[in-house]
């Protein structure tokens, strides 16, 4: 995947420029404690974005990840309080995966456009969460469960370890397993993939299941981090997850992108939020500045020698 070279390079420059500016502007930015702080804040969107990367690579889109996360977060708390958190976690992961498989079912079997199928699921999972929680946060979770979201492994927060492990696994899966290679094939040209004997349907089921599963992991981390399950958790977070993926250079048209660059995308978004808070930028101006910085980072990141990819538009 040589062609992606410049994208890589550019985005790293954009990221470093941003980090450099923040280091200059705030004395605390480049401290270990703040960096870990940012990493922990990124971890939840990072988990969702990792799953979203699979879907986007397959030329799909999943906008239900935020709701799925909330549902799984409620399930881990509810089931956990009733039957213990091992079971709670398992139940949450199962629910997340099931939601993903349902998305896959509608996309594959009933040929519902992914945007619509997952939009419907966004509503269904959110409704299910509200019904399950009666619209109230589930709190009173035991200290032991809070480790997942708040604990440290040595100098690194546990959610960060979890996120990094997920990215490592996702990267290896996408690059070194047959399934991973099939994801690119299906996303690049579903027809040619089918002609090459790839079971495109199975691949699609799998990518949505992975997105659902990782959304559930995110939900568990979030519930643990907040020591409560918020039925309104993750409203609108799908935009952040997709933004991380696309910022990382993946094409919404499928077949192009890398999960490591998604991580970079998620980090850029996280650093941006952190920087705004550190610099105490007025909330009214934050959105403007964030938008401007994202554009700047991408424009810098896009710079490359002439005559490449000149037909790329949209997407």
């Amino acid at each position: 995947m040589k062609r992606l070279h410049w994208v890589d390079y550019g985005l790293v420059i954009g990221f470093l420029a941003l980090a450099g500016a923040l280091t200059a502007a705030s004395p605390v930015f480049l401290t270990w404690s703040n960096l870990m702080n940012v990493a922990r804040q990124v971890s939840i969107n990072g988990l969702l974005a990792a799953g979203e990367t699979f879907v986007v690579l397959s030329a799909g889109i999943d906008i239900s990840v935020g709701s799925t996360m909330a549902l799984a977060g409620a399930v881990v708390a509810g089931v956990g309080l009733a039957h213990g958190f091992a079971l709670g976690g398992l139940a949450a992961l199962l629910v997340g995966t099931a939601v993903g498989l349902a998305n896959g079912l509608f996309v594959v079997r009933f040929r519902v456009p992914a945007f619509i199928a997952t939009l419907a699921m966004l509503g269904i999972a959110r409704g299910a969460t509200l019904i399950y929680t009666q619209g109230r946060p589930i709190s009173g979770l035991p200290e032991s469960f809070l480790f997942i979201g708040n604990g440290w492994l040595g100098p690194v927060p546990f959610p960060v370890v979890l996120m990094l492990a997920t990215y490592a696994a996702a990267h290896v899966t996408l690059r070194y397993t047959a399934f991973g290679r099939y994801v690119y094939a299906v996303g690049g040209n579903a027809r040619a993939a089918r002609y090459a004997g790839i079971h495109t349907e199975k691949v699609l089921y799998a990518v949505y299941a992975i997105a659902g599963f990782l959304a559930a992991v995110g939900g568990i981390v979030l519930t643990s981090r907040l020591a409560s399950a918020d039925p309104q958790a993750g409203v609108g977070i799908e935009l952040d997850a997709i933004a991380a993926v696309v910022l990382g250079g993946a094409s919404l048209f499928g077949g192009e992108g890398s999960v490591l660059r998604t991580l970079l995308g998620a980090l850029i978004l996280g650093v941006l939020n952190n920087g705004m808070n550190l610099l105490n930028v007025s909330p009214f101006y934050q959105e403007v500045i964030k938008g401007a910085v994202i554009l700047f980072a991408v424009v810098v990141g896009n710079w490359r020698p002439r005559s490449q990819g000149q037909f790329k538009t949209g997407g």
Partner: protein
Amino acid sequence: MSLLQVTDVHKRFPGVHALKGVSFAMEAGEIHALMGENGAGKSTLLRILSGAEPPDAGEIRLDGRPVHFTHPRQAHEAGVRVIYQEFSLIPGLSVAENIVLADLPRRGWWVDGRRVRSLARAALERLGVDLPLDTPAGQLGVAQQQLVEIAKALHGEARLLIMDEPTASLTAQEIRNLFQVVRQLAAHGVGVIFVSHRLEEVMELADRVTVLRDGETVGTLRVKEASPEEVVRRMVGRAIGEFYPQRRARIGRTVLRVEGFGAPPVVTGLTFELREGEVLGLAGLVGAGRTETAEALFGLRPHAGAVWMRDIAREEWRRIPLRSPRDAIQAGIGYLPEDRKQSGLVLRLAVRDNMTHPTLERYLAAGFVRRGKEAAAVRERARALAVRTPSIDAVVENLSGGNQQKVVLGKWLEISPRVLILDEPTRGVDVGAKVEIYRLIQEMTEQGTAVILISSDIPELLALSDRLLVLRRGRLVAEIGREEATHERVLALCSQGVGA
């Protein structure tokens, strides 16, 4: 003064120096052929002439005036018309709209729908074909799409008509019609640049031929004074001996039996056998249902009837399921589709990925692809097929057409098929590579692979096949042996009772 004068044009892509100083000139009213191996730089040169890409250096003069096209629009306005090698239709627009897209007739703000259709119909009539004007271009078959691409270039007043392998997916009749139109245009002073890998077409149509090799002009010859051998020698830098190989595979036991087979509703009632080491040709006109037959045999579309294969180990016949291509591959069937861009390749992925898609499992160790082993195999295969690519990690999209075809072929050789279905395998492939492919077919059959060959190039079909099945409107109309098969006979069988 020449109509077109190209002087010392250079073009580089990352990792590839595609044009290294190309020069040639042509006159108005001349039909000028460009020949060269796959990847020689023909399409790149034509894209520069049409304003689709800027040259890095060099000069282009049209009617003696230097031109610097920065957008295809400018070339279009200067009277340059192009049939691109790449798919250049808008799938969602109608056939008529596609044909006149470059200058949609308007009345004020409005597109003049009536004139769109009448102009498009005129262009199609010029070509002697009848296509549904209002059908979206995306719904047509490859051959019909190609006709639309040609009609697109014939519409309007051309000064210079550029055709990049326009005949690759056409039937003999369509090619004849096209040539007639091209000659008429030339007679009216239009300059024509014609790219084809079919030497006999070039010899028949062109006045002069310029040969490109490795991005350089080797020379320009007068067709009347040149022999085909001479052209080929200049192209590939050496003489090509025997074009078609001598068939000498030993035909063995029957491997495949097909009974009452069909791809409803297009094809019905096929019964035939296929033997080890045999090349079975499928002849037929466009629309006869050859591709459908192949697709059904490969599990790509629902089929009727039964397919049996001989189980090697247990020496017994086994009815094979064909629910998906996976089933077919598992049974040892490979399929090289006729449309490599849409069905054969994932264009955005690398040579490596494309070549190992059906066989990735082979490189797994503990669930992970051993990339080193994979790379070695792919490199070996690419070398054997002489695929011209900067590396096996190069994106297939950037390879020249012929080299793309070799990648698809390589993919199927990887599975070591017992039955290999080749649908127009030499479409868009240069002479040298064609000979390579013929040699490959020869080698495979020697090792016992049975081949089903679909080709619209009848001489090729005749030379390679041990036996021919002729399809007409989805029915098997004849089975003829190698000895009885002649060009005239096959053509007659194909077209009997089929209205022109």
